[in-house]
């Protein structure tokens, strides 16, 4: 009852039944872990990307709108910075997910597709709502506030929904945090909402990504 010699990393292979069984179990676990790691998107990468994008993009907006700002950033430059950092995060997210789930078909790819469309529809509708409000003639600061609070809320709710769907406590908590700080930031108004989204939002995501990375390292 010894396994044949071409198994992946056989320890000493001559101890009989128990070792062969232990070896087989280790082989199964290693293989399953490898499949999980290679076919599921890495939350640390995604939180890292979006955390950084928000930290930089919303941070630029804060520095552009804060009266006592040490840096004199024109609003247009802040807008481009936010746009470019979000676009970069979106492209890199798409590449990362596409690579990981390549070749996987069935329920989880349908789930992922519906979830992806939810983000898309959420932000397109938000843009429509804000352009509708803009036509009533409110000032630019209000529009800025709506964009910041609105996107924070969409992000928060979709993370909470994702946490519910994949039974992911971290994602759920991060979503709740986003929803709450966006609401609080909106009450505080411009420019503070940008600071809140940059530090509490983006910084919070980076902190979660870092904590997850540290835990994986310790777990090994």
């Amino acid at each position: 009852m010894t396994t044949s010699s071409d198994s992946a990393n056989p320890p000493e292979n001559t101890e009989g039944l128990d070792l062969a069984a232990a070896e087989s179990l280790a082989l199964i676990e290693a293989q399953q872990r490898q499949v999980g790691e290679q076919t599921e998107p890495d939350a640390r990468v995604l939180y890292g990307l979006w955390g950084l994008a928000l930290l930089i993009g919303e941070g630029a907006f804060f520095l552009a709108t804060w009266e006592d700002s040490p840096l004199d950033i024109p609003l247009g430059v802040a807008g481009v910075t936010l746009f470019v950092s979000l676009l970069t995060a979106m492209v890199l997210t798409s590449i990362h997910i596409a690579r990981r789930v390549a070749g996987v078909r069935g329920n989880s790819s349908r789930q992922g597709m519906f979830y992806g469309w939810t983000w898309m529809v959420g932000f397109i509708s938000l843009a429509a709502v804000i352009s509708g409000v803009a036509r009533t003639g409110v000032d630019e600061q209000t529009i800025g506030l709506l964009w910041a609070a609105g996107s924070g809320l969409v992000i928060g709710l979709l993370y909470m929904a994702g946490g519910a769907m994949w039974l992911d406590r971290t994602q759920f908590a991060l979503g709740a945090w986003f929803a709450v700080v966006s609401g609080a930031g909106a009450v505080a108004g411009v420019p503070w909402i940008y600071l809140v989204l940059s530090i509490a939002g983006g910084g919070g995501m980076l902190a979660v990504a870092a904590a997850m990375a540290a835990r994986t390292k310790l777990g090994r």
Partner: protein
Amino acid sequence: MTGDAELDPVIHAPARLRLMATLSALAQGDRLSFTRVQKLLDMTGGNLSTHLRRLEDAGYVEVTKSHLGRTPATHVALTRAGRLAFENYTATLRALLGSATTQGSTP
């Protein structure tokens, strides 16, 4: 229940064991493309086909062929019987190791 049963010979070969473990790691209702399985297992196509056929003959694996535009695509998944056989197999391994009690399966 299956404590002193024989280890399923269809599964108990390193290549097929890794193949079954790979497919069992997928969520139920998911399939994996042939090429992706090949990469995950680092196996040649011919070798993988041979083992897949053996598992398919045993009713453990379902192979579906379809077309993505012009390119044919083959996807692989465990059947219900395959999942059950794999669970029995790992349960037997644990029983052989005498760790069945620590797994909490018997109160």
